[in-house]
């Protein structure tokens, strides 16, 4: 399978990833990403219907902790790092559209 990655595709993933590209970058990245995906087309060509995907190389399961309360961080130490903070909260500009 040869990749058919288009400029539109790159525009779409950039939007999904919250990145803005100039026209020149869009051209450049489209070419580069298409090249990488073409290299990966050897994967798509494999018939792997009977093969299970690997999530963890050693198959660990059921890793859990007990429901114990541990100390949280001092708010001032967290908010100190915030680009914008007010009233003990993190500030952000206007939110357009409600949560998904």
């Amino acid at each position, binding site marked *: 399978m040869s990749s058919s990655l288009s400029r539109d595709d790159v525009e779409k993933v*950039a939007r999904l990833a*919250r990145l803005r590209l100039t026209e020149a970058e869009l051209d450049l990245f489209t070419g580069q990403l298409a090249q*990488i*995906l073409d*290299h990966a087309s050897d*994967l798509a060509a494999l018939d792997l219907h009977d093969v299970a995907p690997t999530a963890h*190389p050693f198959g660990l399961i059921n890793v859990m902790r007990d429901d114990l309360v541990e100390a949280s961080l001092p708010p001032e130490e967290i908010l100190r*790092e915030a680009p914008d903070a007010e009233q003990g909260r993190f500030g*952000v500009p206007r939110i357009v559209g409600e949560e998904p």
Partner: protein
Amino acid sequence: MNARTTAQRVRRGEISAVSVLEDSLARIHAENPRLNAFLRLDEEGARAAAERVDALVAAGDDPGPLAGVPIALKDNLCQRGVVTTCASRILGEWRPPYTATVVERLAGAGALLVGKTNLDEFAMGSSTENSAYGPTLNPRDLSRVPGGSSGGSAAAVAADFTPVALGSDTGGSIRQPASFCGVVGLKPTYGLVSRFGLVAFASSLDQIGPFSTTVEDAALTLEVIGGHDPRDSTSLRVGAPQLVAHVDDGVAGRRVGLVRELFEGADAEVVAAVHTAAEVLRAAGADVVDLSIPELSLGLSAYYIIAPAEASSNLARFDGVRFGHRVSGEDVTAMMEATRTFGFGDEVKRRIMLGTYALSAGYYDAYYGQALKVRTLMIDAFARAYQHVDLLLGATAPTVAFPFGAKSHDPMTMYLNDVFTIPTNLVGHPAISVPFATGEGGLPVGVQLLGPGMSESVMLAGARILERDREGL
């Protein structure tokens, strides 16, 4: 002076940790401005640690197995209050409010954490050219890259700034720079070393490991940082590994597979080094057999889908809201876009977009889903190989360190650098690069030993044989 000797002498009171530290800092101050291996020093913290070590020794207490050993940390490891950048503009002057497990363990073992080293931004790269804070130069040849992404840590050890440094290895980011800089670099079994506090690139592949000048120091460091951590769900339920005691066990009676797919296509000198290494192991009593594992050729493709896919999600949190740099925007989406567009370099953007695409509706099955199945094929292929042999031998990188700019214009060419290191990350196995020969321009060539999961002790014993009999490096 290597780490083990330093620690022994400090513990015996023959030298002070403070004097070891001052020597290290003096070398760093003299050479680092040229090499750019360190992005930041924590002299105050390191001095306080050295004084504590000396006080413990004076009081007759044991300051630990790494007493007084200066250690450099790749700048994607969190240390409370110490600026952590991942060599990215997006983190600004971020001071983490917490400390990585490995850093806690090093400090607890008496190590002196002198500072944070340069890397390819978010550990994405093979040359340390993708740093927002300029490239690191290879101490062996200043016109060449140190490799990457842990180039700063490799260079710090190669330049004798510190005897040990930590790096992270997602697709070869410890072993390839170790090979380029002529030092030992070890990627442990996935889950042997806690990832808690390592800024994630690709969670299912990332593993922290040491750079050192000797195989024994790599063993010693891994003993300190290894073992189960309840704060990392992917951490294996194993205790601290016992490695130093076995480092001189030799390879007599071991079977070693010389894997065609792990050196074919490399430079002639690299191929020659691998064959010489095979002879050295044979001479030490190992049974070396030729092997082919065809599935390894799928590794590169699978890796350059899986790693970017995970990265695209791991790097979403860099959005200008809670920490790091913000570029303002008229609404929250515009702010996030402006922040990420300014904050990330091209390679990071490339991988985020690649990964976003590979996970997006309509493409998941063809790319990401298929890549996870290829991982299974590779796990099975390695398992078959390890039914017959204890270790595998191959090259670390196809070439010696290359000049700046030689590959940075073409991502795919750069990615091909990782072809021999990637397979172990995909299957979670350990591997080590040992400086073994010299190639073009007298530059170091590393060879790579691979073993099955949790075979570090056998692997290190093999590496010790190669180290002992390497060509005059």
